[in-house]
């Protein structure tokens, strides 16, 4: 399993689109920094194939006033959860 970490907002380019097309069936996605904007209800359709494999970083949601606005299906993890995901994943790929 590879952990894909995205720090770009969905409107900042094609990063998110490229990540989603590159992910294998057992890979996980973690949104951090401006990437947490991807975890908004209006964009939920983008991630339906990632049920149970999509995460978003609590601290970055909170600093942007977005905590609590996530659609169902996004697991909110804190920085310890981030480390835990990197432990579980054989490799971590950062997209920026």
């Amino acid at each position, binding site marked *: 399993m590879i952990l894909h*970490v995205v720090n770009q907002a969905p409107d900042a380019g094609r990063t998110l689109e490229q990540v989603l097309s590159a992910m294998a069936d057992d890979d996980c996605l973690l949104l951090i*920094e401006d990437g947490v904007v991807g975890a908004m209800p209006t964009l939920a359709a983008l991630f339906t194939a990632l049920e149970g494999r999509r995460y978003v970083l609590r601290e970055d949601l909170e600093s942007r006033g977005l905590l609590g606005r996530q659609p169902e299906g996004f697991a909110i993890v804190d*920085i310890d959860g*981030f*480390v835990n995901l990197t*432990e579980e994943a054989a490799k*971590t790929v*950062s997209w*920026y």
Partner: protein
Amino acid sequence: MRYAILVLAAPYSHQASHSALRFAHAVLARGHQLDSVFFYHDGVCNAARLAAPPQDEPQLLDGWMNLSAEHDVALQVCIAAALRRGLMDEREAARHGKSGHSVEPPFELVGLGQLVDLGLGCDRLITFGT
């Protein structure tokens, strides 16, 4: 596990350095070993010893130095990326005929081979980019 962190972004321009420092502390808090933080591309600007941000802002330079002092984490800076941005230690300053130096321990100027070694030797290498 043995971890290493790669920082590619300049401090105060992007969130990457803040994220990396917070991640570093979380790695250590979970009982892992953090071998090194490697600064490359604009990330080398984290090593500027004369950085003096306003007192009410996060003190990234102090944060990295404390991380190194308290947890014996190496702070490695790509020498080629550093020199072209005016970042050099006393030895490089003398070699290039410059009157001052802008990098000092615990930051150390190293070659890219050190990054390759981290990738080979550590269990996890986590990148924070722009």
